């Protein structure tokens, strides 16, 4: 298990708050590899606040945001 993943993702604003995460979400994040953490941070850094509001993060669940439909197979 990679230690410090959660701290790094919170610092990079991939995750807004560690407190809001479920146990399963923590398990997923703590199990991320270095490559995965770097990729997530890279994606977050490319997002402007016009796309994701300053209060939001990649991990926020915003009921106003609707994923569907995206590309389907």
């Amino acid at each position, binding site marked *: 298990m990679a230690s410090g993943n959660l701290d790094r993702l919170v610092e990079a604003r991939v995750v807004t708050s560690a407190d809001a995460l479920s146990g399963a979400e923590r398990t997923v994040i703590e199990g991320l*590899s270095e490559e995965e953490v770097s*990729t997530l941070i890279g*994606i977050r850094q490319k997002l402007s606040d016009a*796309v994701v509001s300053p209060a939001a993060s*990649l991990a926020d669940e915003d009921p106003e*945001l609707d*994923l569907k439909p*995206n*590309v389907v197979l």
Partner: protein
Amino acid sequence: MSPLPHSQILRGKIRLVEPRLAAVARRFWTHPRVGELVPEFLFLVHSMIRASVPMLEAAAAAARRLPPGDPVAAPLADYFEKHAREELHHDEWLLADLAALGRSREELLARMPSPTVAAGVGAHYYWIHHVHPAAFLAYLAVLEGNPPEVDQLEDIRRRAGLPPEAFRTLVKHAHLDPHHRDDLDDTLDALALTPSLHALLGVAAFHTVERVADAMEEILDRFEG
């Protein structure tokens, strides 16, 4: 090892980047020119879906070539071969839907797909052939993991002012993809995935989300620029 099923781990990772795609999708589907965006979206989907069966066949063949003793080889190959049969002709469905919007088959097949699509799809060819074919499960998990809903598609269709014939493939996927998603999750959960394969799946899923979002943004930019 994590106590979570493999499918939950992958879905949990995808959830970390879902807002990236959701923000673009919201801009896209609420756009005042959505009637003009839909044919471009269908072309984008066709650009990707035309590669589905060839990639599934490539992934199956690569899985069959894995070293003897790789515990995921046989179940992976079986899954990819089965799913290739399920995905047959979906590209033709889309061409028929686009024909209902006055777009000819010749025009669509002659048109250059976005390099972003090539980057998104092409990365999976690389992973299949040069890393491990399991990576392609992440592509499928992203693209079949959030199927559209029929009511939502009908709302978009009305706002777009387009005929139902243009939405036939999307509606079919609203019905098919929940089953494909469940099959994929069952397959994932039965595989003996190593930590390195989990990492590959995560990176491949993040890449797929990013490229799909980029491709939809490219369309939006053309209508907003």
